[in-house]
């Protein structure tokens, strides 16, 4: 269960310049549900995702995930929380382009220092699942957009998080690849993952496996 309570978020750009990104957000997302956050660019979707992932803190209000007040966690506990619970697919994928596919995908496993066999097993599983086995040793910068996106989701998935967050996942994909990504999400829904997608791509609207569509405008829910 993910809950946002009375969230306000103000970015202090500089001394004289503030941006009110979110105002009075109340939201709750049940475990295992798929939620689409929709709204125009600049409406505050990414900000909500970063609060749920404990990447940032609200200016006021609380974020509670499985009864943990993550908006109050110190930096290291926030990292540990992400490591245990969250997989993120970023808008620009945020892969390290000079590393290979394998090296990018295993990043979330490194802090726990797993033994080599276990790591190899997990890696092999996601490579097969997202159909990039033959790309394993290739540098990410030599991949196409669709392939990079599958590497990004493989990285988000490898440590088996309960919650998967995707920010504008189809922004750089053509329709065919976008539909393919939507099918990947459908598969993850079957594994009872909680999935939150921020997007303004109409392909996501009215999907059968999506439990809820939440519209956001100028920092508040519609």
């Amino acid at each position, binding site marked *: 269960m993910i809950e946002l309570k009375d969230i306000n978020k103000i970015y202090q750009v500089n001394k004289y310049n503030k941006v009110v990104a979110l105002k009075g957000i109340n939201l709750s997302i049940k475990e295992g549900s798929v939620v689409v956050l929709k709204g125009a660019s600049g409406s505050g979707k990414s900000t909500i995702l*970063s609060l749920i992932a404990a990447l940032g803190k609200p200016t006021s209000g609380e974020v509670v995930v499985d009864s943990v007040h993550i908006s109050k966690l110190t930096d290291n506990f926030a990292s*540990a929380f992400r490591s245990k619970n969250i997989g993120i697919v970023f808008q620009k994928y945020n892969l390290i382009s000079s590393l290979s596919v394998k*090296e990018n995908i295993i990043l979330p496993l490194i802090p726990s220092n797993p033994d080599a066999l276990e790591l190899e097993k997990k890696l092999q599983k996601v490579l097969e699942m997202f159909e990039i086995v033959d790309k394993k040793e290739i540098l990410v910068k030599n991949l196409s957009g669709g392939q990079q996106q599958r590497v990004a989701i493989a990285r988000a998935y490898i440590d088996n998080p309960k919650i998967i967050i995707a920010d504008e996942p189809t922004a750089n994909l053509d329709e065919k690849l976008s539909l393919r990504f939507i099918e990947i999400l459908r598969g993850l829904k079957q594994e009872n993952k909680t999935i939150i997608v921020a997007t303004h791509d109409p392909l996501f609207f009215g999907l059968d496996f999506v439990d809820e569509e939440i519209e956001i405008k100028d920092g508040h829910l519609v």
Partner: protein
Amino acid sequence: MKKMINFYLLEYAIGSLVRQKSKNIFITIILSLLTFLLTAVFFITSSIRYELNQTVDALPEIIVAQTKGGKHYDIDVSKADSILSITGINSAIPRVWGYYYFKNAGVNFSLVGVGEFEDDYKEILENGLLIGRGVRDVLKKSYFKEYFNFILSDGSLLKLDIKGEFDADTELESNDMILMSKDNLRKIFDIDETKATDIVVSVANPDEVQTVASKIQLLFPNTRIITKNDLKISYQNIFDYKGGVFLALFIISLFTFFIIIYDKASGLTSEQTREIGILKAVGFTIEDILKEKFYEGIIISLFAYIIGVILAFTFVYIFNAPLLQNIFTGYSELKTSFTLPFILDIQTLVIVFFLSVPIYISATIIPSWRVATMDAEEVMR
């Protein structure tokens, strides 16, 4: 069980270094060279300092030399007897010695006459020479292997056989030395029986050196009295002056080092900042990130340190510090070259280590630490 070293993190660090290959190779080379330069300078300094101390220890406590209007002249041997009558004096021995200029090689040799009390050498030196190693090398080049011809003041030659080499405790001093009988030496420098170059005095109680020196000065106002302490100071002065050259090198090294450090510490590229954001977003803690940066820093700096120290060892003790040694022993034109004695200078190794490795590691870690402790929400943009 939790393993001690996270090899994935180490692998990641090595990968990071390899990804910026040319920059890191450049830094490693510069750091190695700086370590080398600093270590070599310290090695040479402590080696020579050791040598000078040995030399000073071997010096006589008091030397009495004759002067006329401030200029040196040979001293009357009979003055030794008068000096002996002063209380507190163990011995007063007239020495005959001098610098002989060997034109062929353009160097000065120190000729030292061995006296009647030094029985060991007496036999050998009846008509021969014992030479220092440096002298041997110089003579060989001029094809003198078995004998040497000294040119006397009347232009005639004095041929003396080379009977062998002598081993010396202090190479700096004895390397250019030739031992011979006092009689032969008198012939070469045209010193007659009643004269000597100077008189060396030994004192029973080292604390009385100054008192005894003043007494001798009173007895013979026309002499110059040089105590061991005076010599020590003048040696030290040469050393300190030459040390200034080293100080300059030292400052240049530090300066270069700090430019590298400043460049590193002044901030990360946007690419590096983004990478840290990504690592945090996938669950790295601040510690994980700093550990990775620590690995990066220690790999480069420790490697550079070891290479630099090995180079310095090789340069100083195997190749005998060409160029750098000359800066210090500036009079190498006149003196024969000498081998730097090996001193295992742990203190230098420790100082250079602490001047390089931890500073470099901090310069790698601190900017990353600043980025890593900020909120990671920027990665969402």
